[in-house]
């Protein structure tokens, strides 16, 4: 099925169309399950003024952190950004804006964006700075705030295996935000460890059906570990 072959062979093709001031939603939690090669390509292409929606912003010199080096990021939408000295500096300088969003709300905003739900109510953040300026409504006597969904011009996703139709599965906890990001991009690009033949992935085990995916590229991954902690007897 030529119309359904999503595989591209170069990172240039994978990120074609990315322009200044676009919004990019990225999968990953910390350095786990991040699309390393797609991030490197964004750095190489040099698009500026980006809004990046991602739970974290990598670390100095790795992951999304490398996009800070040439000041490509205008705004981060994240739940936690604490591992990054350059981030801190740009934030204090006013070169970078950050919209802190509770982790579960961030995940749900991505899912809602992909699912055509423009907004939803949640108790998370009510009565806190996160709730300021947001609509409040009571259900069953409890107050909730209205949160709007997120979509991106691009979604960049890291999967374990994909077939050429774009069907993806994720490995262990490298799943995290990836399947949610995948649904919410106008153009969704998935970087994978392995491309398999259609039919190799069991239909009911597919985490991201190919309908959400526009481009698939085979990458190679460093998979840096942020905090290696060993069982007691091995320390």
């Amino acid at each position, binding site marked *: 099925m030529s119309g359904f072959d999503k595989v591209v062979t170069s990172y240039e093709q994978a990120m074609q169309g990315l322009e200044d001031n676009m919004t990019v939603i990225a999968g990953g*939690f*910390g*350095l*786990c*399950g991040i699309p390393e090669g797609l991030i490197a390509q964004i750095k190489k292409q040099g698009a500026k003024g980006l809004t990046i929606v991602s*739970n974290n912003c990598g670390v100095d010199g790795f992951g999304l952190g490398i996009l800070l080096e040439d000041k490509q990021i205008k705004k981060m939408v*994240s*739940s*936690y*950004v*604490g591992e990054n000295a350059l981030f*801190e500096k740009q*934030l*204090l300088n006013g070169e970078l804006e950050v919209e*802190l969003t*509770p*982790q*579960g*709300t*961030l*995940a*749900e905003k*991505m*899912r809602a964006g992909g699912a055509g739900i423009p907004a939803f109510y*949640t*108790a*998370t*953040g*009510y*009565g*806190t*700075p*996160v709730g300021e300026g947001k609509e409040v409504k009571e259900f069953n006597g409890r107050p909730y705030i209205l949160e709007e969904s997120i979509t991106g011009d691009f979604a960049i996703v890291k999967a*374990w295996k994909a077939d050429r139709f774009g069907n993806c599965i*994720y*490995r*262990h*906890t*490298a*799943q*995290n*935000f*990836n*399947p*949610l990001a995948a649904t919410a991009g106008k153009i969704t690009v998935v970087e994978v460890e392995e491309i398999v033949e259609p039919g190799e992935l069991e239909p009911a085990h597919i*985490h991201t059906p190919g309908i959400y995916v526009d481009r698939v590229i085979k990458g190679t991954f460093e*998979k*840096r*570990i*942020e*905090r*290696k*902690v*060993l*069982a*007691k*007897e*091995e320390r």
Partner: protein
Amino acid sequence: MALTRDQIAMRVAHEFQDGNYVNLGIGIPTLAANYVPDGIEVMLQSENGLLGMGRYPTEAEVDADMINAGKETVTAITGGSIFNSAESFAMIRGGHVDFTVLGAFEVDVNGNIASWMIPGKLVKGMGGAMDLVAGAKNIIVTMTHADKHGNSKLLQECTLPLTGVNCITRIITDLAVLEVADGAFYLKERAPGVSVEEIQEKTAGKLVVEGDIPEMQF
């Protein structure tokens, strides 16, 4: 005497009931997993997307794709499950996680909690804390009763930006176990050797002491 971090964790672990699904925050809460009483089994939820979190890995087991919410390498128990972050917070927000244990800077008599932001210091973010305090059925706050300058962390009204409102019902500190109800802290237990007077002195919010206050049992 004030409890050590491990003793606080030990006391926290006594709150667990057999079959509880538990989410443990970073620090003292995580230690509680080491002290689950005999005959009681709990299953740990890690909000990045893991139910049935196991011990830390051996060198051979280390896998970059297998981490917990603290971004530490970890393993899963047999019978664990792995899912995306929206599903993970559906469990939390939907009240399916029975217990959340987390630290705090301040708690007040209305069950408000401040745990993520100190104005003037760099704000790193709330992570999943706001979702957890809004979602779990039971929330236990563990912290030292006072800060290192001796200022009480149990206040009449929180001064720092809040993580959640009206959500904390139980607090376990290095000095005491307290319940939060009807606009007051109710003293339930004392750390061994700690007097009610000392607890009173270090509790800035309204403290109710009813009858004899027993010492904690471990």
